[in-house]
Structure formats: structure tokens, C-alpha cells
């Protein structure tokens, strides 16, 4: 019997949020603060020769910071040291920071920026990633001997080939990026506060840029208005910039991006091209897979190597296949660097394998549900990296649940004999003659089945050694100290529930500390579906130890806790993460246990396609998700519903494109996301196949819902109008091109 786990606990951060009292960075009053701004490159590639200053402007009114003013290294520290804090010679993307300006007010800042003119020798730019030969990172995964299978196909086997493209996507957190930095104290220490997912990443970047110790660079997270990966690495850039300006002008400096600047320069989802070749037996058994993955990393390496890693590991899908080759590369272009966005490479590769499964199903005359059910990984199977799936494999359960909810298994998918089925000619005719404008609509259903690894890939968690501390306060409450951030997903609530449950106290006896690098240990970043399973697991261990020290008894918790302190105990327990026993991983060969476990899910989308306009309405979405254990079911449903809608947006309406290296959707009027009227009812079935090494059986959920929406929608479009769309987003223009390209098309 639990009191908090699996029950609904009111969000501790809720009352302030609904009252408008929560302090986000733009709400933080900082008396005397100046405003910071950035002079940026207008070209995608070039050499910066000089920056001319208009002599008519009074430059004594502002403070400028260039590369020579950086006290440490001119390196934006993350994984590879290829990105400067400020460009000093070669410019590699539009919007690259060249010079920083601080001014006492906005008009002065704008005037100063307008009075600066970078003189740049423009160079040829590589803007097509598919032809780029400059590779940030390669990954090869090999299981069995797919070459031998393709060379000597068993009798009756067939080979299916398909290419799949996915375009970029903007996180579009509703709060733009921003931070405030204070000038250094005489001892060199300084503070940065802002909107961010990963305060310890920001600290790491400041340490390199300023040549200071970790203790000297203090980073504090403020309430953060959404992240979705977009505030994983970029806040480090803003923090370095604002702290450089604060150091130069001796005052606090606020850098608050307006939406236009945010859209122009912050990282987005990697555009991708996946090419599949699959050998399949006549009964639908997958015999061999050959997958090539190419991601557009953009101008600098940033997170591309790890995004590619997750993308490749998920590229064979949630399917059993003994012979698999996956070859991935993240290539450099002169685009704004791409970065983290919920799913982290997996939505791209999941889209491709799921569309490939539909291609196979249609080619073999098998039902897409039956084909997936037949090939789905089960406990005892091995993944593409050779990982033996031992525990918490909810594949059959999610397929059964989504089947029961949606009826997909008995739906005659893409069957031209079906009563309500449309043919491509219907669509073309309707579009060409406009005979039944507004009345001709066709419906369809589509399925996707997918999994998503919880936590960092491979040896990542072992290297990271995430730490959590639980410490009693003098009044007997227990404080949870971790670097994991609340960005809307419910970290505070979930940690409160886990701690209260384990300590056997009330939720009111728990305090979750603000992520402040001077106060909390480094629990690792708030990414990778790891906060619940990894950090929550460490937290639960710490609470268990503390509970033993406090001891049971009839007295209220706080009394017993105070008694422990009075006995001279420091009332503090710190725990470091260790991977569950028996996991192995080889970074060189990409063989082994890629993740401790996986979340499993299946989606069915029902769409209605307007044959006149080829607009697609998603009418309904059923999803079944195995999360191990829903610590807070309402929060988990919130994650699934929100992530699913992001996936549906990407599937058909969230266009993000570039021209000459410039992001074309550079304002909210053009960078669109689904509204209340675009969002379908989302039916969530939670499945709990517990993970024995996760807290209360829990595993990750944050990214998983992003993976399956797009392939389900495009499969439903195929069911409705008969064309196999293989490019996300499936805009009306793209669907029209597919219809017109069909043999015998009349328009």
C-alpha cells in the first residue's frame, strides 16, 4: 500500500503557477542591470575581417566584448571543442555570435547594434546535408551477417527498399531563452541565473570560458517555461555571453531573447535521411536489415554525436532481427547547429523503420498490426546492439492495449475494396475539378510500434555518476538536493512523492531544493528520460538509508527526524548512481546493453484527409505506453499527451525550413504549432511492466511519446488516400506531389 506513488499528489509548484506568481527569468527584478545583445553573422560561411563602428554613435554609452576579452578559452565547452564563444576568424553559420554589447536600456542597445557593421568575406556554403562529406561523427552497428543474407536470400524471401526523410522541428517552448549574470566578486566568483534544463552543463561551459573553478561559477536555475531539449545546451551560450558582459561592465547583465532571435539561432531537431533495405520471409519474418542514417548536424558538433547514437540504436525499431547493419553519420553543414529535441534522434529513425514496416506489410499483403506483432521484440530477444532483453518488456501488452482500444487489427488497412476507401484518382479528380469542394473527405487509420531507451546511452550513466543528497533541515523536514530541473514535466512533484513514500512521511515534510550548483550535487542533466528512473532511483536509495537512520516509531516524522539530529547525526545521505548489475557496453563496437531498459508504446492515429485541399485532420489518437510504474499517473499522462501532440504537429504541420542558411520560420506567426483546435482527443492507456532496478519499478517516459506519432499519422494518410508518404512533415503540397506522381494520375 503506497501513499503517494501511483496516487495523485498536487503539484507543489502549481499554486504559484496558476496565480502568476512564479518567477521566470524575465520576471526577476535586478536593479541596475544592463541589457545584453549579440552582433551576429548575416552569412552562413565567411571570414570575419573586421567590425566597423559608426563614429556617429557615442560608444562610451555601451560596453563591447569581443573574442580577445574572453578570460579563459574561446570555446563553447560541451563534447567537442570546435565551437567558439565568439567567432574570431571563420564564420560557420548565419547568426553566429561575433561581438557582444551591453547597454543601460533597450533603445541604446538597439542603436549600438545598428551602428556596428561586420565586414565579412563570404565563402561558399555547404547547405545540403545529403552531399556533405564533412562528418562530425560516424556510428556503425553490426549484428550477425546481413551481407550474407542479402547475398543468398532464402527461397520466397523478398527485399524491400525505402528512403525516408524528416525535416527539422522547433521546440517552441513558450518562454524564450534568457538569463542574468552578475559581475565577479573580488575572489573571482560569479553567479548566473536563468531558464535552463542543465545547470551543471552551464557551469562546465563557464569554467572553460572564464578559466575559473567549479566553485567560482555558480549557476542557479529559475523557473523554466518549457525546454523539450531546447534548453539543454543553448543556455550555456547565453550564460557565457551574459557573464562576459557582466564582467566587462561591472554590473548585472540580462540577456533575454525575443522570439525572433530565439527562432533564428537556437538549435532544433536534426533533419535526417534514412535509407532502409530489408530482407523479409514470405510470412513476414524480418531476416536482415540494412539501414543508413544521415543527420544534418549543422555548423558545430554540439550534441550531434549523442543524438546520432540514440538515433542509430533505435534505427532497427522494436523488432527482432538476427542480421542488422546500421551505418550512421552526422555531417557538418553551414546551418545553425542542430541539437536536442525530445526523442534525441529516435523520432527520425523510428519514423523510417515504421514506414518501412508499412511498406513491407503492403508489399506482402500482410496486416500492419500482424506484421508488427509477429516481429516485435519480446523478453529473451536481442536488440540490434546484441542486448538481451531481460526485464520489463511491455511490447505485447502495449500492442494488445492499442488493438483493443482502436480496433486497428480488424481494420482493412489500405484495402481498396473497403467501402469507404478512396483511391488516388478520387483525390486527384476532386482536386482537379473541385466538384465537391469541402465535402469530399476520406478517413484512415495508421499504426506505429516503438520503444525508447531510458537514461543515457551505453556507459553514459557510469561515466556521469549522477549524485543526489537528502538532508534533514533543523525543523525535521527532509530536503531533496539534486541538479534535476523542473521544466514543467513534474520533477518536483515526482521527487516529493518518491521521497515521502520512502521516508514514510507526508508530502509537506519534503522540500525539493532549487537547482543551484553551489547547493546541490551534480545529478546529471535533465534529459534522456532519466530523471525518474536514474535520478529518482538514486533519490529513493538515499531516502531508504535516511529512513533507517531515523527509525520507525509512533512519533510524527519531523519529531523523529529532529531526534536523529539531536543524537549528533548529520541527517544527510548522499548516493551516487551505479548501473544495475550485469550490464555491459563497448563504445568502440557499439555492442552490448545500450540502455538499462526501454519504454514501449504503440500508437494508432485516425485521420481525415480533405481531398480538395489535402489538409489532414487527426481525429483521434490512441496510445498505449509501458512506463514500468507511473509514479504520478496524471503527470505521466501529461507527458504522453503533450509529447504526442508535438509528434502530431511534426507529422503534418510544423514546417521548419532554411533558405541560404536562414531559418525561414523566424517568428511565431510562421513557426506554427498545434492549437486547441488542432489537437485530437488523445486516449492514453498506461501499462506497467515493472523494471526491477527502477524506483518502484519505474522507467523513462519523457521522450517516448515523440517517437510514434509521425509514422502513425502518415500510415493513416496512406490508408485514407493510398499514397505512401515518406517525408515529415506530410504537408498538403507534398501529398499533392505524391498523388500527381502516381502512374495514371490524371492531374
Amino acid at each position, binding site marked *: 500500500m503506497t501513499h503517494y506513488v501511483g496516487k495523485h499528489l*498536487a503539484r507543489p509548484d502549481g499554486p504559484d503557477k*496558476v*496565480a*502568476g506568481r512564479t518567477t521566470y527569468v524575465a520576471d526577476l527584478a535586478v536593479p541596475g542591470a544592463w541589457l545584453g545583445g549579440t552582433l551576429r553573422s548575416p552569412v552562413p560561411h565567411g571570414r570575419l575581417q573586421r567590425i566597423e563602428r559608426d563614429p556617429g554613435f557615442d560608444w562610451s554609452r555601451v560596453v563591447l566584448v569581443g573574442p580577445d576579452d574572453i578570460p579563459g578559452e574561446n570555446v563553447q565547452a560541451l563534447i567537442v571543442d570546435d565551437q567558439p564563444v565568439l567567432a574570431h576568424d571563420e564564420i560557420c553559420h548565419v547568426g553566429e555570435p561575433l561581438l557582444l554589447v551591453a547597454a543601460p536600456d533597450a533603445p541604446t542597445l538597439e542603436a549600438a547594434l545598428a551602428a556596428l557593421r561586420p565586414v565579412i568575406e563570404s565563402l561558399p556554403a555547404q547547405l545540403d546535408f545529403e552531399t556533405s562529406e564533412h562528418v562530425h561523427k560516424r556510428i556503425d552497428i553490426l549484428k550477425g551477417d546481413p551481407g550474407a543474407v542479402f547475398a543468398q536470400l532464402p527461397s520466397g524471401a523478398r527485399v524491400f527498399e525505402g528512403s525516408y526523410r524528416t525535416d527539422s522541428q522547433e521546440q517552441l517552448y513558450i518562454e524564450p531563452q534568457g538569463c542574468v549574470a552578475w559581475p565577479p566578486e573580488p575572489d573571482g566568483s560569479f553567479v548566473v541565473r536563468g531558464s535552463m534544463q542543465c545547470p551543471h552543463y552551464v557551469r562546465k561551459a563557464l569554467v572553460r570560458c572564464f578559466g575559473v573553478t567549479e566553485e567560482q561559477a555558480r549557476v542557479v536555475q529559475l523557473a523554466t517555461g518549457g525546454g523539450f531539449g531546447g534548453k539543454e545546451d543553448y543556455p550555456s551560450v547565453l550564460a557565457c555571453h551574459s557573464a562576459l558582459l557582466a564582467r566587462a561592465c561591472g554590473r548585472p547583465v540580462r540577456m533575454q531573447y525575443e522570439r525572433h532571435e530565439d527562432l533564428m539561432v537556437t538549435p532544433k531537431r536534426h533533419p535526417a535521411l534514412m535509407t532502409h533495405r530489408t530482407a523479409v520471409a514470405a510470412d513476414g519474418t524480418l531476416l536482415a536489415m540494412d539501414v543508413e542514417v544521415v543527420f544534418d548536424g549543422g555548423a558545430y558538433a554540439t550534441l550531434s554525436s549523442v543524438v546520432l547514437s540514440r538515433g542509430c540504436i533505435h534505427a532497427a525499431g522494436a523488432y527482432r532481427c538476427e542480421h542488422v547493419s546500421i551505418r550512421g553519420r552526422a555531417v557538418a553543414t553551414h546551418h545553425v547547429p542542430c541539437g536536442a529535441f525530445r526523442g534525441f534522434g529516435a523520432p527520425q529513425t523510428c519514423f523510417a523503420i515504421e514506414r518501412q514496416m508499412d511498406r513491407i506489410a503492403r508489399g506482402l499483403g500482410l496486416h500492419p498490426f500482424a506484421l508488427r506483432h509477429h516481429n516485435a521484440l519480446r523478453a529473451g530477444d536481442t536488440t540490434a546492439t546484441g542486448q538481451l532483453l531481460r526485464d520489463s518488456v511491455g511490447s505485447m501488452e502495449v500492442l494488445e492495449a492499442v488493438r483493443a482500444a482502436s480496433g486497428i487489427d480488424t481494420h482493412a488497412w489500405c484495402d481498396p475494396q473497403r467501402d469507404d476507401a478512396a483511391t488516388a484518382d478520387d483525390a486527384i479528380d476532386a482536386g482537379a475539378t473541385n466538384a465537391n469542394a469541402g465535402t469530399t473527405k476520406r478517413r484512415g487509420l495508421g499504426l506505429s510500434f516503438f520503444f525508447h531507451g531510458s537514461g543515457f546511452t551505453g556507459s553514459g550513466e557510469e561515466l556521469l555518476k549522477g549524485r543526489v543528497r537528502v538532508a534533514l533541515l533543523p525543523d525535521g523536514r527532509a530536503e531533496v538536493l539534486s541538479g534535476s530541473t523542473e521544466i*514543467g514535466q513534474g520533477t518536483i512533484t515526482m521527487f516529493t512523492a518518491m521521497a515521502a513514500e520512502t521516508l514514510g512521511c507526508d508530502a509537506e515534510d519534503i522540500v525539493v531544493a532549487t537547482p543551484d550548483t553551489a547547493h546541490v550535487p551534480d545529478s546529471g542533466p535533465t534529459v534522456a528520460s532519466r530523471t525518474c528512473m536514474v535520478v529518482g532511483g538514486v533519490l529513493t536509495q538515499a531516502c531508504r538509508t535516511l529512513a533507517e537512520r531515523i527509525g520507525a516509531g509512533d512519533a510524527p516524522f519531523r519529531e523523529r527526524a529532529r531526534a536523529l539530529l539531536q543524537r549528533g547525526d548529520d541527517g544527510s545521505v548522499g548516493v551516487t548512481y551505479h548501473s544495475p548489475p550485469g550490464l555491459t557496453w563497448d563504445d568502440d563496437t557499439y555492442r552490448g546493453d545500450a540502455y538499462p531498459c526501454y519504454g514501449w508504446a504503440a500508437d494508432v492515429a485516425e485521420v481525415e484527409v480533405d481531398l480538395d485541399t489535402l489538409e489532414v485532420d487527426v481525429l483521434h489518437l490512441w496510445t498505449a505506453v509501458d512506463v514500468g510504474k507511473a509514479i504520478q499517473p496524471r503527470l505521466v499522462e501529461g507527458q504522453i499527451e503533450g509529447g504526442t501532440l508535438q509528434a502530431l504537429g511534426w507529422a503534418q504541420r510544423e514546417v521548419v525550413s532554411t533558405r541560404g542558411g536562414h531559418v525561414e520560420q523566424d517568428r*511565431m506567426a510562421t513557426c506554427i504549432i498545434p492549437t486547441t483546435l488542432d489537437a485530437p482527443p488523445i486516449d492514453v492507456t498506461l501499462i506497467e511492466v515493472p523494471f526491477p532496478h527502477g524506483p518502484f519499478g519505474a522507467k523513462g517516459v519523457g521522450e517516448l511519446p515523440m517517437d510514434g506519432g509521425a509514422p502513425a499519422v502518415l500510415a493513416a494518410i496512406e490508408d485514407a488516400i493510398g499514397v505512401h508518404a515518406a517525408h515529415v512533415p506530410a504537408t498538403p503540397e507534398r501529398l499533392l506531389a505524391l498523388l500527381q506522381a502516381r502512374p495514371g494520375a490524371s492531374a
Partner: protein
Amino acid sequence: MKGPLQDAAPIELTLRVNGTAHTLQVPPLRRLLDVLRDELSLTGSKEGCGEGECGACTVLVDGEPVLACLIAACQVQDAEILTIEGAGLESIQQAFLDEGGAQCGICTPGMIVMTKAWIERCRRDDVEPTELGARTALAGNQCRCTGYGAIIAAALRAAAPGDGSS
């Protein structure tokens, strides 16, 4: 959307916000959002886009929803302005808490204020509050966290008959 006219010579304005009259010296074209946030320290109204697309700055002016980033403070002189910090929103706020309608919270003030406008309009026009009605009323308020289901549920809960939100 900030421009030089917003920094023209200040004029005296009287704004009635959440039942209190404030006499201020502000440039005539200063956005209402900036006056609320910077002059009156009412930071509950948020700026997500600055061009009227996201709805995070929604306030009520004489009961009608207005995007505070698109209107000059001088246009609402003597009107009754209600922001998220004002009274009469308690039952809607509670409904958002109960339904999980707030995640990151940045769109929440605008959502709640717009929900207030919708409920008041339903009552004034004697229209049954429906899901489609709520979805239509809130279509200009963007949320990236929730998928909107919990927000719509909160709006309907707050609009249910017998609720004392007005």
C-alpha cells in the same frame, strides 16, 4: 515590437488594474504589457512572442480578452483591466490545479484569463459551455506542454453550473 515611439515623451495615464487606479507617466505608445510588468510589477502576464500569436499576455479589458503585447497603454485609459493577479479567478485556478492544466506554467496565466472571458461570455449569452466552445475560445492561447486535454478539462470544470467563479 518595441520601437522609438514607445520611448516618446511620457504622458500621464490612469490605468485601473485589478480594482486599483494607478496614475503613471509613460510614453504614449508603451505597450500595455510593458506597463503592467515594468511599471506595476505585475509580471504574471507573460511575453512569449511579442506579436499576438501565443496568447501568454492575455488580460481582460472591461471583460473582453486583449493581447497586452499588441495594445498601447494609452488605449485602455479608464477601462477596467483584469490580470492573473486580480480577484475572481480562484475557481478557474483551482480547476487548472485539479486537472493538471499547468505544467511549465508560462502559458497558464493567459489560459486562465482567457477561460474567465469564455465563461463570462457563455453566461452573458446564455450559451451552454461545451468542449468545442472551450477549444474555440482558447485557440489563440498556445501551450507546448500539455497537448491541451487537461486545459480543456479545466476550463469545462470551471464552467460547470453551480461554480462560483463569477
